């Protein structure tokens, strides 16, 4: 059985729906408080997949993700490196992406994990924004997004504007590490314009992965978009399906795939 560790504590708040997503995808998922890992009550090594869910760890005080990343770095860094070296999967969503960013889990440009290579800055309008966005899948390499071409997922953040140096951007692009970009409903690039690009992200970047494609960080929340009933156009689609004598499927295939891909990969790799 594939085991997923869902990190919690200090204001992370999407752990329940994240756990549900991995369970629905066939894994055993467990919400683990960071202090239980630090105290040794739980061991990172016992899990195949790790997720840093969204939330407001430490209230975003001093900078989003800073404090939680520091706590991990100070107390769990060797375990985390080992987890990565074993080729296990890590997914970070929203605040989880911010934490991973400050941990330097994308290994750019030096290929060494632990060096911060990008930042997630305050949205252009400097305000929290909650809305569904359209995303175009860009990466062949990323394990999580195989088979996903375009999808629609909600974002909810105040600091999600992806930023890096031109050099790092080139490495990301050259290495197929840009995973999702913001686009309009037809798939056309947002080209920085609001609301398709909701935060002013550089090159419309919504998600990146490390060089291995096994560590994914993304601002949008796929765990909130698993079911069609939660989609903003659900009532519209339901009505039109009914007129064609159809019923809507239960799950959003694309968003669900992010989790099933991960579980399938872990299974193949000996979990």
């Amino acid at each position, binding site marked *: 059985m594939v085991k997923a560790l869902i990190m*919690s*504590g*200090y*204001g992370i*708040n*999407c752990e329940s*729906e994240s756990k549900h997503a991995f369970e*629905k995808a066939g894994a055993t998922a467990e919400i683990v*408080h960071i*202090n239980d890992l630090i*105290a040794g009550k739980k061991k990172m090594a016992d899990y195949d997949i790790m997720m840093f869910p*969204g*939330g*407001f760890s*430490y*209230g*975003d*005080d*001093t*900078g989003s993700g*800073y*404090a939680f990343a*520091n706590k991990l770095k*100070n107390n769990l860094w060797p375990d985390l490196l080992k987890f990565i070296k074993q080729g296990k999967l890590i997914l970070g969503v929203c605040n989880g992406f911010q934490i991973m*960013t400050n941990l330097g889990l994308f290994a750019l440009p030096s290929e060494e994990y632990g060096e*911060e*290579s*990008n*930042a997630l*800055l*305050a949205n*252009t*309008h*400097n*305000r*929290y*924004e*909650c*809305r569904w966005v359209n995303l175009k899948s860009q990466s062949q390499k990323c394990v999580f997004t195989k088979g996903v071409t375009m999808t629609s997922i909600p974002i*909810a953040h*105040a600091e999600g*504007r992806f*930023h*890096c*140096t031109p050099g790092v951007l080139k490495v990301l692009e050259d290495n197929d590490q840009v995973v999702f970009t913001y686009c309009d409903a037809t798939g056309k690039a947002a080209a920085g314009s609001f609301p398709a690009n909701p935060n*002013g992200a550089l090159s419309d970047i919504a998600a990146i992965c490390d060089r291995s494609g096994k560590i994914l960080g993304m601002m949008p*929340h796929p*765990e*909130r978009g*698993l*079911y069609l*009933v*939660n989609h903003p156009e*659900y*009532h*519209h689609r*339901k*009505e*039109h399906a009914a*007129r064609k004598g159809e019923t809507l499927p239960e799950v959003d295939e694309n968003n669900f795939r992010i989790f099933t891909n991960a579980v399938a990969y872990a299974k193949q790799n000996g979990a």
Partner: protein
Amino acid sequence: MPSETIHRIEIDTKEQGSEAQVLEKKLAALGHQVKARISKAYTLRQDFTAEQLEKVAAALHNPVAETARINEPSTLAFDWALELGFLPGVTDNVANTATEIIDDLLSMRLGRNRVFSSKVLFLTGALSREEVENMARELINILIERYHIKSNTEYKQEEGLDKVAPLVKLTKEPEAIEIDLDVPEAELLALGKQGIKDPETGERRGPLALDLDYLTAIKAYFAKEGRKPTDIELESIAQTWSEHCKHTIFAATMDDIDEGIMKRYIKGATNAVREQLGENDFCLSVFKDNSGGIIFDDTWMITDKAETHNSPSALDPFGGAITGIVGVNRDTIGFGMGALPIANKYGYCFGRPEDTSTIYRGKNKTNPSLPPKRILDGVIYGVNVGGNCSGIPTPTGFCFFDDHYKGKPLVFVGTLGLLPRKLPNGELAHEKEAQAGDRIVVIGGRVGKDGIHGATFSSEAMDEGSPATAVQIGDPITQKKLSDAVCKEARDLGLYNSVTDNGAGGLSCSVAEMAEECGGFVVQLEKVPLKYPGLQPWETWISESQERMTLSVPEDKLAAFEELMEQRGVECTVIGTFNNAKRGVVTLNGKTIFDLDMDFLHHGLPDKALTSKPYPYKTQEPRIGVQDPEELFLRILGSHNCCSFEFISRQYDHEVQGNSVVKPLQGKGRVNGTASVIKPLFDSKKGVVMSQALNPRMSEVSCYDMAANAIDSAIRYAIAVGADIKHLALMDNFCWCSSNEPERLAQLKDAARACYDYATVYRTPFISGKDSMFNDFKGYAENGEPIKISVHPTLMVSAVSVIDDVKNTCTMDFKAPGDLIYVIGETRDECGASEFYNVLGKEGGTPPKVDAKTARKLYSTMHALHTTHLLSACAAIGAGGLGVMLAKMSIAGQHGAEIDINLVPATVDEPVRILHSETPSRFIVSVDPKKKAAFEKAMHGFAFAHVGEVRDDAKFVISKGKEAIIDTSVDLLDTVYKERFKEY
């Protein structure tokens, strides 16, 4: 005092950040053309080595976007440096997090008050010092924040900003003092109104809000005890007996209503409804806990509660609103054995934001009140931070604008919760009882001077004496940690017997309330953890410092409880023991400073008798002449109370927890709805529908109908999206004004009577409620004349309904061209207090009458229409009337529409009245032509009519027979609807 080492770390952005860009825009709007850069600053009161400082600085910034300076001035080019920070003692969340980062990083325990956060604005532009000062006052709230300005020259000469730690300096030894009540009546009155006189300074400590008859009863009690009261005892009694805590006006005898209007009309309605419902009664816990609770399914229950935080929000909009929302979250966490918050709701009544005329609390233009726009910005942002940080979705809310809310805004905040009906140990989760012998444990935040006299303050009108200490800053993360530790872990482990919130009155109320369950308590006050030393005992006891819960933990579970809290980063302190000695006792370092009979404390307040006098309602029809119905229609659509407030909806996370089904914005056109639906459990199809409504202007024409309409509106809004009238509960939030005036009491009685009459016919029980009775502003107008601004007597009604399947919900957006448009319900000439009259500046008129008997049948049928999927779109007609609702359905669906108002079922003929009358219990729906026969059959016996069609283009046409009255386009409607708050 020995000098101490202070370091300063400042974090600069490499490029100008969004915050600085948005600040420039904001300053430009205020008339200042400046360039700005913003740096974060940390003042560290600790002797660190250079190497330690390097490490700390590295942990406090992201090197990709930021650089750090340690004890170095900035090298930026600028004209002015403006530092903004907190006043001493104000909760500084950023500093607390920085402290935790440093502790973890350097493996040390810094302790409290070692780190202080601030922001430095480096401004470039032609500004005088005075202009920078004005700017600072625009950017901060001087009640809680400080600023410091240096010119470029000063900054260079003095090598940066000053290294100052804003420490609270209290040197007086804590002690309780005795108060003499054997004093002349005038002195007693002053004691009640302005508070206890400080023996050293001679200053009054702030309102006890105790009337003469209350003080007489207290005097008699202490005469019997044979001693003088202490200050902590008096303060505590004042808290417990406050209007805010004991609802003295609702409980008092009013005219011939001996038992009071609460018992007769509100609880009376609930009792009557529960009896009518018999075995279908879905109530589990009503009016006895921090929230109300109803059945969700066999395993789960839903809780609901709405609160107001009006007075604190008037003084400090951000702090008032954030503590309001996290406070009502604690009413969920503190319900039963601890419910998990699953949805937040908000409702704001503000003055018009474009109103910039200043009103003053003090004479001679002193102590200006904040203008409506600043109150609006602060309140909205407060709920943003409180709700978003807590991971609780905010699916629904509303804004209402009226000049009567300029002096004091109304800030409604509500929370729904989810709780298993039984705990793992088999006990009912909504029952709790502190046991004699249990330890009194407080968890969460520490106690400071913030929030002192909150309960007694909100029982008084706001004037110059309003205490600044009544404001509080929220710390949602401290609360999130305790909420998770309690509701997700300790509860199911059975580690405590009872839990409650520390809200109004702080420990004095929470401990005393829990002690009622067992019969007494002893508290060792010196054990209460403080933010800084030097608090007087009465302050510690009544402080409303936030994010604290009180629990009763049995001795044999204490170690496990303490260990769990430690592991979850939640501060946990035993402060005493519950007992059954019938006395409440507080000691300070072994000395008894408080020793009261529990029965006196809770039930010693004398009965009040109030007399009302009929209110002169203004029902006369105003003279109305409308030249251009289309112009009027667009004006109403774009008016404050009909237009889009999307800017609020989208800054509140409504997707967290993955439960949203009908969202705050409906359709592709993103129109604000009046009700929302969530699906709280992943493994159940069942949903919860929630809505809120108020019609406060109607209080001037008929308070009875105001309440009737608020009830009908809340129910109707919920019904429109799919609610089930057979499983729908209500809550009442009364926000009144001048409740010591007999005419205002008559209005109150009228409204309460309507609550009974309508709730019993609808068979919708009230499960919880709250009142706030003195929403008045007394001060001075811009011209110096004294003014009093009272809110409209306001009743906000919330509805919550459980439905079997969220698939049977419906939104307002037109879904397909060719769909048939129907109007359900009869339209009458009932424009009194409507938005129609309001945009024309007219008052009075005929109030809308609610026919609840017919409406209940209709609502039952509407539910059947939803479950059989006969409707493709559905909306309840509300503010602005039929015309405005039809426009919103077109905007939401981005489809044109055309209707003929001759076909609308109506007893009035004039087009503008058909379009804008606010007759209750009406809907507009659209129906797939294939379902016409089935729909019409289901609607047999009700007033309804097919009035038009959804168009296949973007034209929007309302005609009377062949004559087009309104002929426009969806694009234009969309623009008008979204224009007003576009830049907010």
